């Protein structure tokens, strides 16, 4: 009886130990195509939203600072992408409607590892949108002043 209970405990401990590896290995990867399809899922009411900071260079600069602090560790210092997150200077990101980008930043895609950035105030999410939309498309000239 005692041996059976001990055996069950060992099995439970083993399963608990293995579970994290299985979950992490099974996690969907966030590749550029996944990002594209995620953006297409934005509800229409968000697509209609306008960026209150549209056309404000200061918002782009503030957004760049926020990007360096919160996003660069996965998407690269120049949004060129890393093994953790896709590049963001793609036409379907840079050219996306501001409200779509705002919606995606707010909700993330937690099943694929993109955190929800609702922890940032709305204003800062819009500043990030300003920066993302100012990125030169991949292959284009980079303007360090952006």
């Amino acid at each position, binding site marked *: 009886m005692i041996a059976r209970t001990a055996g069950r405990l060992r099995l439970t401990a083993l399963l608990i130990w293995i579970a*994290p590896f299985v*979950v*992490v290995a099974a*996690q969907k990867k966030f590749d550029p195509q996944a990002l594209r399809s995620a953006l297409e899922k934005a509800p229409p009411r968000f697509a209609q939203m306008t960026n209150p900071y549209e056309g404000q260079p*200061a918002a782009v*600069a*503030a*957004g*760049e*600072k*926020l990007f*360096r*602090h*919160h996003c660069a*560790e*996965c998407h690269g210092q120049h949004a060129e992408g890393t*093994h*953790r997150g896709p590049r963001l200077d793609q036409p379907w990101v840079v050219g996306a409607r501001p409200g779509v980008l705002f919606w995606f930043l*707010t*909700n*993330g*895609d*937690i*099943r*694929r*590892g*993109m*955190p*929800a950035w*609702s*922890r*940032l*105030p*709305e*204003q*800062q999410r819009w*500043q990030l949108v300003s920066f993302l939309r100012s990125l030169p498309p991949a292959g284009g000239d980079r303007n360090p002043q952006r």
Partner: protein
Amino acid sequence: MTQTTLLRFGLSASLLLLLLLVALPASSQTPYFVTYTHYLEEPGNLEISFLPTIGVPKTGPRFGSALLEFEYGMTGWWTTELYLDGQTTAGQSTLFTGWRWENRFRPLAREHWINPVLYVEYERLNGADRTLREVVGFDSGREQAETPNALARQEEEHEVELRLILSSNTHGWNLAENFLAVKNLSGEPWEFGYAVGVSRPLALEASARTCRLCLENFTGGVELSGGLGTRERLTLSGTSHYIGPVLNWTPAPGWAVRFSPSFGLTHEAHRLLLRFGVSYEVADLVGRLRGRP
């Protein structure tokens, strides 16, 4: 052990805080110490926190406690944490009081008005633990302060803690409510508690310049927590409750510093708890271990 020990503990904690502050370090930490929000650790990141508390009981000697916390983002919807607890009591002793392993799961993929998170913790502590990470049942600060460490440490607390975390964001404000249920596995009844926090960044817009003391790097708020009795006696009477302002500062990306003086509201609570916290986030832990740039 005397008051000098406690003073040394306080000074060491303060010195460590200062050393960490002057080092070059944004995690978007909430300022709470007891209340959880729906923000989880980013996948692959490890956050290391040092959380000292200085306690001023109404009766009995002052004490200092500390938590060392390792928080790892397993996935976008699962965060796991390991805590190591210890304490020192003036005129008594300094001891390791046990460990906790907690997991938080976010069941909903999208943001809603109210965002739930499920929390499961297993803890193996002794009765001398004074980190006051949660207040449940009839937890009594008075009784705790009057029980010497030598006696308290003989009691084994082998517990499971469940929380329902509800958290909302609106107009820059965060409002989080936690409902706690704790079960001592040695056959004691379920104990209940709560924690509520409200906070807001001091500035909602980010400035373009890099700065450490900008208002946007500070978040302030209020936190309230306390016990709600047990399954057999669900009540506010005879329970401990605390309230206090909370402040979080993110001096640089990855770093966070927190402070809160919590005041005891009831006869059973400690007079004052001075809570501190310093956190550093290591991005892409596995990648670093594998030597990725």
